[in-house]
């Protein structure tokens, strides 16, 4: 279900009430400056969480292919040496465009380390 890039990040999927939660382990493959996650790895995780949430919503709505239009990532806290979780939320699923948000956290979801907002083009 997940593409090669998700394996590259070491992602696994956790079931949840809403969209699936993605879990990323800490390690040399995803660090930037010593002892902290790389902003690119956090952004990649957020994008994967958004894609998983959107596919989840799209499958329940007739399916379709998606193409990323843009992403804006806000980095709020340094990512430390522990598991990072991320979950996407589809705020609007239109016929041609979807608006999706995603947050990444380490301890509690209400203390995010980063959040992102994306637009996706949908080809039905």
């Amino acid at each position: 279900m997940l593409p090669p890039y998700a394996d590259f990040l070491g992602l696994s999927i956790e079931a949840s009430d809403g969209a699936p939660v993605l879990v990323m382990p800490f390690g040399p493959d995803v660090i930037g400056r010593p002892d902290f996650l790389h902003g690119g790895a956090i952004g990649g995780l957020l994008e994967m969480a958004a894609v998983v949430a959107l596919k989840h919503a799209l499958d329940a709505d007739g399916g379709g292919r998606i193409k990323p239009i843009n992403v804006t990532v806000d980095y709020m806290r340094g990512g430390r040496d522990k598991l990072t979780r991320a979950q996407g939320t589809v705020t609007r699923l239109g016929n041609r465009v979807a608006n999706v948000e995603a947050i990444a956290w380490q301890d509690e979801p209400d203390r995010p380390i980063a959040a992102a907002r994306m637009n996706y083009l949908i080809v039905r």
Partner: protein
Amino acid sequence: MPGDDNAAPSIGFDPRLFFKLRFVNHSGRLGIGYRDHGDDWVELTLPYAEELIGDPSMGVLASGPILALMDMATSVAVWRKLDAFKPHATLDLRIDYLRPARPGQTVIGRGECYRITRSIAFVRGQAHDGDPADPLAHVAGTFMAAEGYW
């Protein structure tokens, strides 16, 4: 790391030497390398790799590695504009994905720091896969130095 607590940004920063350090980290694992630089800009390369594919049916790179490339290129551009290494963190980064990267092609990311204040650096950049006039991504963002850039 070529870190330095010297308040005067005069020690010089050479991105070519920086990338020769071959860090065991995310950008090293992605294979991101040095290509070129100027006073306030840097060009880095991201080689195509099957393990970075986001859409297996098309063989197109995921957007995440391109985000990481542009985060790195704009970050290093800040150190070029300062001509010094200063620890900083990405505050925000926005990417427009103009088109998919061509399978098999190395992606070239150019980052530029166009304005820097004591605590915030403003950056922008573009990525292409051979022809700078045919960009595949455009970025704008900010970095913050917790201890200040000077």
